[in-house]
């Protein structure tokens, strides 16, 4: 039979374990937030680079005024080529941003999931310590007193 002080001591230790688990959870959330911010920073940086590059190329491409039929043809072909290039660039930029976002999200999810798994293990261990094995393994028998009836104190 456990004494009151033993039960109190176990409870206190269990509370301490839970507190430690919670602290580690908070640390993981902090790290995840940091990763999220880093990811957002990288995304913003890349978006700024994309915008800068697009502007630079737009100003760089100065269409000349064609003076002959062949000049007109060359100008139109040039415009089509520019359009195709812009489309390829747009797709490439979109893929880069998507991958950066996916990587950042994946890293955050990895941190949170691995902490969640560890927390569950720690919680299980804390429970095992708090409830001694002999109590946990004792059969829980619900006995009904002879003559007792529902709603009637036995």
């Amino acid at each position: 039979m456990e004494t009151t002080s033993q039960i109190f001591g176990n409870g206190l230790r269990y509370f301490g374990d839970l507190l430690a688990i919670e602290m580690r959870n908070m640390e993981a959330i902090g790290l995840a937030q940091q990763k999220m911010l880093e990811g957002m920073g990288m995304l913003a940086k890349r978006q700024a680079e994309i915008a800068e590059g697009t502007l630079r190329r737009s100003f760089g491409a100065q269409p000349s005024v064609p003076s002959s039929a062949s000049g007109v043809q060359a100008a139109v072909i040039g415009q089509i080529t520019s359009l195709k290039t812009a489309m390829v660039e747009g797709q490439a930029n979109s893929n880069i941003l998507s991958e950066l976002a996916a990587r950042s999200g994946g890293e955050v999810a990895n941190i949170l999931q691995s902490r969640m798994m560890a927390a569950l293990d720690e919680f299980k261990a804390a429970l095992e310590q708090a409830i001694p094995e002999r109590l946990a393994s004792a059969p829980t028998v619900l006995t009904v007193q002879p003559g007792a009836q529902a709603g009637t104190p036995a």
Partner: protein
Amino acid sequence: MSPSPTAAPSLGRAAGALLLAASAWFGGGASAADPLDRFPADASQVSVAGISSGAFMANQLHIAHSAGIMGAGIVAGGLFGCAVDSVTDNGVVALASLAVGPCMSAPTLLQPVAFYQRIVTDLAAKGWMDPPGNLARSRVYLFTGRADTVVNSRTVELGTNLYRALGVPAAQIDFRDRDLPGTGAGHSWVTKNFGNSCDANAAPYINNCSYDQAGEMLRTIYGPLQPPAASPGGRIVAFDQTEFVPHAAAAANGLLDTGYLYVPKACEAGAQQPCRVTVALHGCLQSAEILGSEFYTKVGVNEWADTNRIIVLYPQAHATTVAELASQNFLSLLNTNPQGCWNWWGYAGDTRYLTKQGVQINAIWSMVRRVTGQGN
């Protein structure tokens, strides 16, 4: 063959599965090959060559191990750090989308040469690569086909400019791009008389352009050579690649269990003169698990090797799936290598893939050291 991380279409995957099954017959699948032997080879006469993703890897190997590699042959690929977004304390942040975008199809988004030069100097300053000053004595052959629709020629041009910026004299660089007959070469290793039509951009990515790329490449690197043999008289040796990978985790790191070596008769044990060694790297969709023996017997290198005492090392990459990765997590899909390419965008979570500490570079360099009798 894109040198890229893009997934193959479903039809391609079905065909790939059939080829995979067939490749076990050719010896390209998992096997218990013998350990790699030592040979009478000169460690100061080592060169690297590759096509597409193999070109990117050859370029990485050359720049990372510039003290030990005397020259490189780069075909339809190669711009050091092309997929790198930034350098960090632990390695680099590289993106598959930079590989398939700017490096392959959207060259206007490539950075100026100074950006890639800075990556080299940053990584060398961390001690992860040999000092780039060694490159000044290198001889380099670079090639891009006019009809190449897979890796844009601008990427190869920038790779050439990077070599110049790193101190390789112009006289030691042979850049070929526009002088082949017809519409020029498609994305391929070009041969004198084997493969697809010259302008094809299709499997097996070995094209017949009546141009002896292997010969010109080897002459650029090694200087004047004897004419090639009519047919190779040496032997092909299968060897175990797993011993060169940490924990023998070859598949998880994009390497096949078995690699191949071509040994000319003049380079067998007891040879009177030490032989040269060249590492020839296939591209995506060209490993032995896809093409069987085609790459390591048909690209024309063995014929030149035979008459010029060159041992040819053909390491093999592997198409890594999510299930084969060392650990599965939310980033697993971004770490696969569906087309069996060499690692030039940091797959398998290798943040130092382009340095001496990269898993594949370390494995290939260990193979070279074994062949030259330096390593274990």
